[in-house]
């Protein structure tokens, strides 16, 4: 059976200290199924971590919904617990995400205890913990049982976190920046581990990252986020070799290894989510608009908001007036109705 976790028009807001409302997610459709690796790419402030948290119920949406295997997730403690049995989140910071007073054994066994999985299994808790550690590539597992987090290397901590998530035998794994704090040599090992888990266990993986090279390494599909929206999505090969959206093109051009592209370094940073620009949210920084390349659609870029990009896993789509104009299509291939500008 394939499991499927999806977001539909998901919108998450925060109130800042000054009382303004920041819209961290502004309508996102996304779909992840078991057996596939999806990369969610974006800069900090793009809302990618908020989306990961909202998918597992850690952030409460103000509109839209999360669906698990097609049925809407309600926010009762019971439903959330049931979801978290099937979908596991591996947090960003491996040194902060392990309780300093718990041994590796206790950290990995935590999920088993919370979901009472030992009594329903013919193995002992120690065997299940050992199996989880081994499948995360920590061998021999027994030698790590009684270590404390501060006695481990960064790569080992990341593996322990992954082992803790694998212990409950989930169907999907959400990994938030799984390698950003790790050394170059460990990086490949962790990524290979994610791929192997997909091969061996049929696991689906949503990997949240700012690293396009990582997406190229392991992802089947990719979704690029900008300021609370997915602006381009599609199969990794297509998105990364023939990007449509000017933002994706700029991101790709500054990846250090790519020589053939002239680097397009955008000025400034992602705007404050309390003040999302009107029209296309990327237009104030858009290199295509600035260079006059998008002259013909400039008016729409500044005033006409784009619709939410569909989360259907087929095809390559992008939310850009210029792309739509060139294709001669209606802006962004979406079935959703036009939304009102904030």
């Amino acid at each position, binding site marked *: 059976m394939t499991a499927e976790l999806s977001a539909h028009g998901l919108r998450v807001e925060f109130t800042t200290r000054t009382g303004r409302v920041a819209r961290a997610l502004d309508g996102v459709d996304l779909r992840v199924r078991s057996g596939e690796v999806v990369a969610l790419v974006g*800069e900090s402030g793009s809302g990618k971590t908020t989306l990961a948290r909202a998918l597992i119920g850690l952030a409460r949406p103000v509109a839209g919904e999360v669906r698990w295997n097609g049925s809407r997730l309600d926010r009762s403690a019971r439903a959330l617990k049931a979801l978290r049995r099937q979908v596991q989140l591996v947090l960003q910071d491996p040194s902060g995400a392990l309780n300093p007073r718990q041994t590796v054994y206790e950290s990995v066994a935590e999920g088993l205890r919370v979901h009472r999985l030992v009594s329903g299994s013919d193995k002992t808790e120690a065997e299940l913990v050992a199996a989880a550690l081994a499948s995360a590539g920590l061998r021999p597992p027994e030698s790590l049982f009684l270590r404390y987090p501060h006695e481990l290397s960064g790569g080992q901590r990341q593996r322990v976190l992954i082992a803790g998530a694998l212990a409950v035998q989930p169907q999907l794994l959400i990994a938030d920046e799984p390698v950003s704090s790790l050394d170059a*040599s460990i990086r490949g090992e962790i990524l290979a581990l994610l791929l192997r888990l997909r091969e061996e266990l049929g696991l689906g993986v949503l990997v949240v990252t700012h690293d396009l090279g990582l997406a190229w390494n392991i992802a089947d599909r990719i979704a690029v986020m900008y300021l609370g929206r997915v602006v381009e999505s599609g199969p990794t090969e297509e998105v990364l*070799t023939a990007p449509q959206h000017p933002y994706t093109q700029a991101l790709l051009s500054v990846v250090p290894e790519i020589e053939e592209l002239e680097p397009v370094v955008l000025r400034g940073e992602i705007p404050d989510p309390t003040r999302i620009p009107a029209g296309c949210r990327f237009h104030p920084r858009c290199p295509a608009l600035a260079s006059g390349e998008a002259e013909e659609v400039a008016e729409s870029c500044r005033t006409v908001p784009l619709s939410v990009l569909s989360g259907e896993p087929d095809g390559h789509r992008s939310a850009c007036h210029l792309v739509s104009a060139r294709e001669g299509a209606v802006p962004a291939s979406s079935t959703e109705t036009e939304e009102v500008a904030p």
Partner: protein
Amino acid sequence: MSDASLLAIRDLHVTYATGDGPLPAVRGVDLTVERGQIVGVAGESGCGKSTLASTILRLQPSNATVSGTVLFDGRDVLTMRWGELRAVRWAGASIVFQGALHSLNPVHRIGDQISEPLRIHNPSLADRASRQRVGELLDQVGLDPQRARSYPHQLSGGQKQRVMIAMALACDPELVVADEPTTALDVMVQAQVLNVLSTLVRERGVGMMMISHDLSVLADLCDRITVMYAGRVVEEGPARRIFVEPLHPYSAALSAAFPRVGDPAARFAPSGLPGDPPQPWLLPGGCTFAPRCPRAAEVCLPAEPPLTSYGEERSAACVRIGEPDAPSVEPASGHVS
């Protein structure tokens, strides 16, 4: 100015005295930085690259024993008198440390923090002059001079990193040492910061030593790269060539860790290096990289291979170079010390 290299490190050894016995962090490193040149130092955490950086200004911890020479503009930093060392630290060289983002004082405006070294250095400096200088510095690193009135919490990570660079430039140094200046930053912000750094080097002719574990960033920015492993230099040469056709298997592993987007060989094939770097107090005999090396053989075990030159200003410390399935480079004569 003398015609000596801006920075010349020769046979540097740094050993820490610890409770577990002596811990050799740097074991015989040679490195040269010329004016207007960016030299990259690549390696994993624990390879000694940060120790190397702090030793340049004699900032190493007190339990460290140092031998060898660190010539800054021809004068040995390790033996110079205090007054002279102070002058070097003031105006000669400055370091942007790793994790320096957190070293900004949260209760002072960033303008005051940038001008602090200026005012200590020159107490008679007028307020207006110091404000103007801060504005210039912020402008140089691509920040609005109005930002001088902000507090650190009002800045994003990339902006703080630029403030750190502005602080390092405040006293017009001839050498800037940057330890992982972009590690915590997004690709776009990283590109912005790297642009600022390379512009500074090209326009003002300062020398720069840049430390990172990301070989792709170094390859993009640097003129030359030195790859370190377990306290030693294992490969040295022109930046692009080291990234594209590394000689040493360790450089090859670092290079492969960051795939070229669009390279079919890297699709669904992330490449890593098994194992952890050796503990400095438990170095394996022979080649220290051999336990993790995909090409290790019998010949690697007897002794640590010396850094050997391979033509065109390249050198590497591996006995298996040139043997079957190695990158085809003609071994040149002689040893580099």
